């Protein structure tokens, strides 16, 4: 195993963004330069495929495979697009903000590499509303890169040209779904589209398009520079690389750390995040953001990667964990999440538009002590009814994940609310 933190080790300790000069001094833009001089696009795709890089936005799809599924440029002449998804609105998730604020040029270099690999003519960085600082720093970095000739016509004197556009969004969770994001960039109402056709065939303005998460793209220059074997060796498990892990909730040191893939939940929460605050004990954790299933005490030694977290019954997601402590009400916790997902439903399909608000109302009724056993049954029944294959996109099934696992691990807490006719925590 190689001990390295390629994504964050060059960052400044004071939290300011690395300037272009500082980034270059730390080895930045070396990979893109070398790539444009020596490599063919297919070779970049192969490198990333061999590295086994999996999408860091939550779904974990193989990045190289996604790139290889775009229509070949020869068959479909005209513009082709790469989009960096920085619409980080998953509850409890703040890792892409850290990467964009701390080292915006790393993202730009990753985009140059990815865009070249898929032969994109134009790229977009899509950043959510409340990330004012990230938006400003990325915009400044784009201007710096253009001024130096690292973007635009004939990058680094090569034959490759790329225009990089910035898009600041105005606040809607569903924009993080790749087809909704594409609609948003077109200036349409951002509701998800049906697949197929997949964006690789017909995406933005009907053209071949790849949407990659910010953290995914930040990994690419390092893979180009150091190769797939190095990348795999960064991990403690079979799934390569490092990962930005995060912890929030009642812990001593909430924050973010770049750690080897496969770091256990226990190490992340109890070492890096300093363990629980005095007077609070651990009850459960959403391992990968608000739309993932609870894991509990028995899962603490699970290595955090896509495969192992799935085996434990949840999803790796964004790897930003939210900790539930013994003094917070699990019903209220899930109610807060359900209200969020209900509000963020785009309204396009019925199970999501009608089902989620109903579940939220039931949860709050139980939380107020006005619920019945039958209400708990209705909640349980709908965890299978509002599920993958029955909804248009993954929003509603994501909303179900914390609920269904809460009913598994914290069922007694629901029952107590009904029996005592009040919230035991209030």
């Amino acid at each position: 195993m190689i001990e390295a933190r390629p994504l964050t080790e060059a960052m400044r300790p004071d939290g300011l963004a690395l300037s272009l000069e500082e980034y270059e001094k730390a080895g930045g833009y070396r990979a893109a330069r070398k790539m444009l001089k020596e490599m063919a696009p297919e070779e970049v795709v192969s490198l990333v495929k061999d590295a086994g890089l999996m999408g860091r936005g939550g779904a974990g799809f193989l990045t190289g495979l996604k790139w290889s599924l775009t229509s070949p440029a020869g068959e479909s002449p005209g513009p082709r697009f790469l989009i960096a998804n920085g619409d980080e609105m998953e509850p409890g998730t703040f890792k892409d903000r850290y990467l964009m604020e701390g080292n915006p040029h790393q993202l730009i270099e990753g985009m140059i590499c990815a865009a070249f690999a898929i032969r994109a003519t134009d790229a977009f960085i899509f950043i959510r509303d409340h990330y004012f600082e990230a938006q400003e720093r990325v915009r400044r970095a784009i201007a710096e890169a253009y001024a130096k000739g690292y973007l635009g016509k004939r990058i680094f004197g090569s034959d490759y040209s790329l225009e990089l556009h910035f898009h600041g969004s105005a606040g809607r969770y569903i924009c993080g779904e790749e087809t909704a994001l594409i609609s948003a960039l077109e200036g349409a109402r951002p509701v998800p589209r049906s697949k197929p056709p997949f964006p690789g065939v017909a995406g933005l303005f009907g053209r071949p398009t790849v949407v990659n998460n910010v953290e995914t793209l930040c990994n690419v220059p390092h893979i180009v520079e150091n190769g797939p074997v190095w990348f795999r060796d960064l991990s403690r498990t079979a799934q390569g690389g490092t990962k930005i892990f995060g912890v929030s909730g009642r812990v001593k040191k909430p924050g973010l750390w770049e750690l080897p893939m496969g770091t256990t939940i226990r190490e992340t929460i109890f070492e890096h995040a300093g363990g629980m605050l005095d007077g609070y004990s651990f009850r459960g954790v959403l391992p990968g953001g608000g739309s993932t299933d609870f894991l509990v005490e028995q899962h603490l030694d699970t290595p955090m990667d896509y495969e192992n977290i799935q085996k434990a019954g949840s999803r790796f997601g964004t790897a930003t964990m939210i900790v539930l402590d013994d003094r917070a009400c699990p019903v209220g916790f899930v109610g807060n999440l359900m209200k969020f997902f209900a509000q963020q439903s785009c309204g396009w399909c019925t199970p999501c538009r009608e089902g989620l608000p109903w579940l939220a109302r039931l949860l709050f009724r139980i939380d107020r002590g006005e619920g019945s056993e039958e209400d708990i049954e209705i909640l349980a029944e709908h965890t299978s009814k509002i599920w993958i294959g029955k909804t248009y996109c993954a929003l509603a099934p994501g909303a179900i994940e914390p609920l269904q696992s809460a009913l598994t691990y914290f069922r007694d807490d629901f029952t107590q609310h009904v029996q005592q006719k009040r919230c035991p925590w209030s």
Partner: protein
Amino acid sequence: MLSETERQLIDDELKHAFTAQSACVEALLIVQRSRGYVSDEALEEVAAQLGMSSAELESIATFYNLIFRRPMGRHVIHVCDGISCWVTGGKRVGEHVQERLGIRPGETTQDGAFTLLPADCMGVCDRAPAMIIDRTVYGPLSEEEVDRILDEARSDA
């Protein structure tokens, strides 16, 4: 009526946009930055400038949480209602802000200084419980901290 500056900024966006419509969110934000919100009249003019129907632009404007279709106070306060803030006592912080300002979420103080809005997870979970006033992030918050911040904000409101 759109000001000359607003019109010019939207035109600048259109110069490098792939289609006029693809600039619509930015165009709405340009108007909002200059006047705090997007009025019906402004929306119609933006739609005309982009060659869209105002009904379609309205359907997009109202889809986004942070395109304001009603006048706002001089400062906009977002108290985070995300799960990390909830679990660290954000609800009490939110209630305290409401008591201090004497308004409920969605309302504006009588003097026009503050509009209070609920906010979904703002991605500052390491500083929970948190709030954002205009573009500044505050957190982790206590009730005393909230008092201090609001007094300070009011003095330059």
